[in-house]
């Protein structure tokens, strides 16, 4: 074959092969075409796109797809979006909107550097999950905050900072209650509490009172004084810890008696901060709280 013949053969073969693949692909595109509901994209646009996963789906797109396609998926699962987003999603998908209970993250530990004893000096990766692998962390108390700020690093909304005392501080105005910090915390020391709760327990230790006392000056020793002093029965002692029933505490209680009776100060009114956000349900509570403070 001469050079020209080869060149012609190359052009012909390549064109034919290319054309063949092209036709097959064009044909396949028609045959295997999948219609995507345009509503999915609209719903996705409404979501806050923090990709936090608080809804239980892999990301905002996955939730948008699920909420449009599956009639059983609730429209109010987006925690950061709160009520406005839930309402819009409900309208778009034609589902009944249920209220989103606004929540914020709360650190159940007050064992700062000066208050909690150390068990050993940790010199490893500055990460709570790594530190907790070494005998449950450098603190004497094996249930408290380790203080390396894994939660702070993982907060998608910049709502957390690390205090000088080695405890995470939550900016309640920025916190959307997505619960990402709760997931990454190896000690499960972060809890999501409803906005408007009066008191919360600043301790996570299930050790017996004697041990807790030795390790930390502000730990809950499970004495039960708060239980006796709560007029609404909102507090119970469970495994050496006072557990506050959030629902009763938010809706019924106005006194916060337990707060002043706690001998170690483990029950705290640190929720004061939360109440600064003006939520209709908490305005009354706020007024009462201000009165008690001025008295």
């Amino acid at each position: 074959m001469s050079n020209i013949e080869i060149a012609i053969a190359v052009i012909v073969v390549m064109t034919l092969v290319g054309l063949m693949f092209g036709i097959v692909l064009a044909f396949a595109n028609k045959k295997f075409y999948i219609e995507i509901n345009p509503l999915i994209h609209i719903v996705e646009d409404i979501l806050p796109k923090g990709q936090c996963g608080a809804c239980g789906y892999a990301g905002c797109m996955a939730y948008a797809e699920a909420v449009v396609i599956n009639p059983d998926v609730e429209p109010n699962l987006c925690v950061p979006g709160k009520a406005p987003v839930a309402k819009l999603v409900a309208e778009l998908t034609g589902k009944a909107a249920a209220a989103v209970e606004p929540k914020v993250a709360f650190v159940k530990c007050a064992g700062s550097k000066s208050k909690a004893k150390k068990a050993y000096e940790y010199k490893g990766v500055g990460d709570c999950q790594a530190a907790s692998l070494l005998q449950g962390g450098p603190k004497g108390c094996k249930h408290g905050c380790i203080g390396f700020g894994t939660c702070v690093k993982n907060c998608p909304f910049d709502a957390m900072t690390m205090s000088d005392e080695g405890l995470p501080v939550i900016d309640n105005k920025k916190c959307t209650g997505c619960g990402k910090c709760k997931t990454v915390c190896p000690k499960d020391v972060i809890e999501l509490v409803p906005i408007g709760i009066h008191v919360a327990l600043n301790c996570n230790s299930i050790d017996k009172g004697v041990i807790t006392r030795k390790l930390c000056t502000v730990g809950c020793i499970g004495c039960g004084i708060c239980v006796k002093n709560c007029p609404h029965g909102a507090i119970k002692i469970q495994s050496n810890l006072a557990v506050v029933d959030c629902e009763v505490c938010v809706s019924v209680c106005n006194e916060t008696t337990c707060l002043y009776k706690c001998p170690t100060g483990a029950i705290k009114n640190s929720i004061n901060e939360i109440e600064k956000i003006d939520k209709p349900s908490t305005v009354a509570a706020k007024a009462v709280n201000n009165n008690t403070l001025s008295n």
Partner: protein
Amino acid sequence: MGHYLTLLASNIVVNNFVLTRFLGLCIFFGVSKSLNASIGMGMAVTSVMTLSSMLAWVIYHFVLMPFHLTFLTTAVFVLLIASFVQLLEMIIKKHAPTLYNMWGIYLLLIATNCIVFGVPLINVENNYSFLESTVAAIGAGLGFALAIVLMASLREKLRLADVPKALQGLGIAFILAGMLSLAFLGFSGMISV
């Protein structure tokens, strides 16, 4: 039968495409950060490589050979694999949505990857029969899956290790890959095909 088993074993371990021939290194480092992703990637590569290797053999022997155009192999194979991966993506999206959700992003990543391209090319250069080339491609894919799963498991452990600052991330990954490769080179010469 024995011959095919030898070929399979040789491509999985002895002539592992990633660790002894250094093909497919970009996805090897790119997708080996988590074990789950690496398993999905390994499966996607294995299936794409097997199917495209079979197709490539057919095109090579029934189109390129009769017209004496074997010098066009590279160009035709690029075309073949790129369009085949697209086709596969459409078919999987339509008929196996669960599989698509698992593979989705990886499928297109490997459209023009060197290992997916290299294996069919090496197969035709070795004058393998259709069956041989299929078995060799399955072996190469499983070898890739083995390498990337090993690497991902190591890197998951590494996340908690105290790595010197200068070596964090890819640096230590390269060193690890080198050590893995050394270990795999220990097999060399055990099976000659």
